[in-house]
């Protein structure tokens, strides 16, 4: 069967690459489908930012595997096919009083994608990442054999697949644990910090909070370098929200970016104005906690559909690094200063605490993670190369789900289990069959 050639990109719309799209429709037909595939990788909802979900020759589109399989209310264990969206899990289970233990910054990701990237949420410092809430999954190895992996069964495949960027096989279905919640509301408190030291201190002091995340103003320099707002969150109890509509937090359809913005729309002036307004508005809300719906706390950007068009057709890069705690006081200001001098980092900059990761290639490590959106231009790439060197010196690394441009040296320096991962790929015959643009670029 011929498969159509498509030009694919990640969410950041940079880079673009052609790949043959092979559509998975049912789990039972998947083995025969991959038997005819070479240099392929699975693709969920295309929300990895760079080239992780673009197969070098073929790309296995997994959204057709979108059925739920079983749910056990007492344990909260939910089994779904890998192409199910987190958004579907939330819309089915928030009204029933359950919430996933880990959610990333968008709900438009598939379960398979969340495992492959070992995504982290605003509670990583306390609860760990996606790997911690996964009980088991079925992995279809490149030779066509399906194995159920868990901490007990095939633990080495389990550890390699969590955060393994789809390079150990194709995740067919997964069992994850949902937690009971009493309401769909989040009790949010805000802390304003006038500089970076204040911001990291506020994050450190709120390590007990269930959820924490900081917004950073990436344009302010000098004494105000790294000023920002920390948003802490707790699931509101039933009693807390008696005056609100408890589990029901239905919201309007939301706005969309209707067209690709011209290249210079996001500049020092427009972003600076936004950042100042945003900081002052946040600072005025310090004090009494507010109750906001779960989707606005966890997925503020999902409210703006197609926001990746803000950067125009040329696309952008999302740069997410983690800096080990010990070096963060020296390295973070240096990175932020370089970014502030560039003057084009978007208002969507985020600083978070991370705990340790799960998988061989998992991104999280104990420290701070900084996320920046920048236009995909040569100047930006030069500055990011320099920033990557700082990350490597600190012993940190870059998130593969966001990456589209890091050098092999940065990658190899950051991921110490790489050789073990490569060895496992060789042993299951994945090395010559499963290839994404990311794995080809970085030599995974």
């Amino acid at each position, binding site marked *: 069967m011929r498969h159509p050639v498509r030009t694919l990109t990640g969410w950041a719309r940079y880079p673009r690459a052609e790949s043959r799209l092979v*559509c998975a*429709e*049912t*789990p039972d037909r998947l083995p025969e489908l991959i038997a005819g595939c070479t240099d392929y990788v699975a693709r969920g909802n295309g929300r990895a930012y760079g080239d992780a979900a673009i197969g070098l020759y073929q790309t296995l589109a997994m959204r*057709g595997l979108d*059925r*739920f*399989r*079983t*749910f056990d*209310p007492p344990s909260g264990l*939910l*089994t*779904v096919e890998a192409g199910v969206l987190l958004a*579907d899990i939330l819309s*089915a289970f928030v009204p*029933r009083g359950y919430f996933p233990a880990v959610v990333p910054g968008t709900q438009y990701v598939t379960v398979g994608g969340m495992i492959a990237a070992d995504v982290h949420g605003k509670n990583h410092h306390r609860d760990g990442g996606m790997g911690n809430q996964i009980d088991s999954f079925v992995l279809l190895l490149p030779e066509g054999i399906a194995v159920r992996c868990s901490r007990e069964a095939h633990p080495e495949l389990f550890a390699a697949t969590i955060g393994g960027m789809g390079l150990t096989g194709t995740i067919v279905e997964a069992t994850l644990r949902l937690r009971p919640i009493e309401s769909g509301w989040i009790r949010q408190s805000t802390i304003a910090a006038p500089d970076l030291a204040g911001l990291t201190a506020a994050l450190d002091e709120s390590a007990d909070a269930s959820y924490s995340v900081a917004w950073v103003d990436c344009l302010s320099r000098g004494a105000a370098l790294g000023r920002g707002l920390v948003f802490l969150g707790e699931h509101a109890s039933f009693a807390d929200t008696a005056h609100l509509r408890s589990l029901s937090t239905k919201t309007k359809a939301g706005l969309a970016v209707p067209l690709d913005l011209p290249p210079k729309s996001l500049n020092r002036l427009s972003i600076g104005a936004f950042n100042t307004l945003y900081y002052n508005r946040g600072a005025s809300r310090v004090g009494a906690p507010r109750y906001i719906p779960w989707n606005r706390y966890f997925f503020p950007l999902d409210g703006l559909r197609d926001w990746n068009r803000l950067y125009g057709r040329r696309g952008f890069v999302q740069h997410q690094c983690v800096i080990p705690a010990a070096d963060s006081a020296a390295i973070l200001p240096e990175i932020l200063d370089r970014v502030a001098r560039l003057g084009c980092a978007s208002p969507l900059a985020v600083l978070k605490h991370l705990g340790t990761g799960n998988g061989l290639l998992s991104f999280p490590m104990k420290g701070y993670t900084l996320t920046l959106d920048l236009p995909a231009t040569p100047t930006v790439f030069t500055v990011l190369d320099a920033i990557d060197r700082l990350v490597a010196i600190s012993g940190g690394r870059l998130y593969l789900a966001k990456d589209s441009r890091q050098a092999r040296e940065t990658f190899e320096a950051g991921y110490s289990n790489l050789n073990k991962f490569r060895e496992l790929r060789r042993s299951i015959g994945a090395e010559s069959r499963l290839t994404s643009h990311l794995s080809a670029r970085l030599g995974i």
Partner: protein
Amino acid sequence: MAGQKVLLLVGATSDIGHAVAMRYAREDWRILLTARDPARAQRNADDLAARTGADVTMFSLDILALDTLATFVDALPVLPDTVVCVVGELGDQTRAQADPEHAGLVMATNYVGPSLLLGILAERFAQRGHGSIAGVSSVAGDRGRSSNYVYGSAKAGFSSFLSGLRNRLARSGVRVVTVKPGFVRTRMTRSMKLPPILTANPSEVAGAIYEATERATADIIYVRRIWRLVMAVICTIPEPVFKRLRL
């Protein structure tokens, strides 16, 4: 659960059928599903139960096995409150022109089977004094066109059957709804290029069926309203002109 309403969904393997069952399950209905191949449809049944917690039961039913239809209805654990039939077969027009067996299959699947099954249920509903019946027909049944008249004529027959049934049962407490979805984005149509404004999602079709059937908003529904206009225009073209068009 006492007082819980029961849906019988005929054609559980189809994307539209799955969406309809999901819509009713979200309203806390008990769901009875039928499929010719229950093993294949089980994936949809599991999806319904896991997402909504609904009580879902699967039955094997071949709508072309006409002599089994009454027995099937008798064997149901309970007479449903609503039945929605989404069974259909697009077939291949060119093949149907040369192959009477294929044409017969298309006619039987779109007209004979669904009409007879809904007819049996209609009698039981009328005896009981209440119940709702929704049949998924097609805009293709509004006027025969060269590109799909075998399918279209069968759907026309089905639409007429539903129309007559509705007329007869209007005073008996039994509702009959004719559904004309227009283009729908399903596995069957995924490779086709469909005009977005004329194309509905399965969940949209399901929502329209639920509204019309349970809230009594309409007897004949065109899921995308624009289809009513499109088909009205197509139906008013005089035959001497129409026969020369390539449609």
